[in-house]
């Protein structure tokens, strides 16, 4: 792991505290996404929720060819992404600067994928899955939090 010491930036302690809270919040929010993705990935791999058992929309979405990427369930990739966000946000909360920078790119990538998946659900599959919508909501929340945290850092520098 990077041995870079936590950066103090010489900033106002209140700013550092605010940033730490925002990144901590991002870490907590990403855990919601992680839980959601793990549930979906396990259900997908068990081949259970793609059958009609509980939710109509989820069956349609998860049984569509868009639910996997090269044979890997999209939810599993999502779980990996949320874990990455959690790790980076935690490190950023402890003032690891590289993590804060990397977090912006990861969350931006996730936002683009989320928008694409929302488009697929709305216009191609024509069904919405509430677990996928929850994931989209989490990504949008992460985008806002990370944006606010970065803005406060940049403003103070």
């Amino acid at each position, binding site marked *: *792991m990077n041995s870079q*010491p*936590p950066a103090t930036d010489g900033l106002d302690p209140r700013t550092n505290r605010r940033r730490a809270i925002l990144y901590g919040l991002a870490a907590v929010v990403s*855990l919601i996404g*992680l*839980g959601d993705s*793990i*549930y979906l*990935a*396990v*259900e997908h*791999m*068990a*081949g*259970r929720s*793609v*059958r*009609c*058992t*509980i*939710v*109509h929309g989820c*069956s*349609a979405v998860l*049984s569509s060819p868009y639910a996997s990427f090269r044979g890997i369930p999209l939810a599993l990739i999502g*779980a990996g992404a949320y*874990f990455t966000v*959690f*790790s980076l946000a*935690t*490190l950023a*909360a*402890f003032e*690891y600067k590289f993590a804060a920078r990397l977090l912006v790119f990861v969350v931006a990538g996730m936002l683009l994928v989320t928008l694409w998946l929302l488009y697929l659900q709305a216009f191609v599959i*024509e*069904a919405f899955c509430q677990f996928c919508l929850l994931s989209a909501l989490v990504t949008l929340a992460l985008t806002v939090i990370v944006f606010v945290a970065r803005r406060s850092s940049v403003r103070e520098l």
Partner: protein
Amino acid sequence: MKRALPFIIILVVLVSASAVAWSLKESATNDPPTPTPTVAPSNSASPAAPTRSVPPGAEPPNAIGPATAPVTLEEFGDFQCPPCGLLHPVLKKMEQEFGDRVRVIFREYPLVPTHKHALHAARAAEAAGLQGKFFQMHDMIFENQKAWDKAFDARLIFEDYAQKIGLDMEKYRKDVTSQAVEQRIFLDGKRAHALGVQGTPTVFINGREIPFQSLEPGKLRALISNELAAAGY
């Protein structure tokens, strides 16, 4: 200690997430009732469910293919279930490829209330069945699933299908709400329940449940061929 703390937190979350995933996977594997221990390879059918106390379902069943066919595929389906709609062309393909060597039975298992039109669709198909046109209606309903799926009241659309396939409309309207139709759906549901059907589509091959993942043309073809070979065909 402060420097190590975030890494400890990340590690704890990683371990917890793995544990949650593992326990979810275990519960997903254990949830479907397994009447006898599963020893079959993953792409083959599960062992036969016990036949004792399993009701036969509606008689005669809605079936394509001769009763003497060496392979019987029995589907428990819901007309409003998207995966059932996706399975429909796959089973059609199997019917065409294997002809008289395969018998395909469709059993009603409308998932009420999840699918609000499923029961109406089942009634419409069964009412058509009383006029000897079950599969014409069955095909019509599945092939147009997207057209009626979001309708406010799909019954009018089914009436339209009934007309298109040339049903006696007066009889159809009477049958669609009849006790005979209700009873057939109920009997299929009782059989599904006794066999431990958890969702739709669930397909049995010669009495053994086919894993959901095997309901695609390649694997299904292989399963049918194996059954035919075992029967000396």
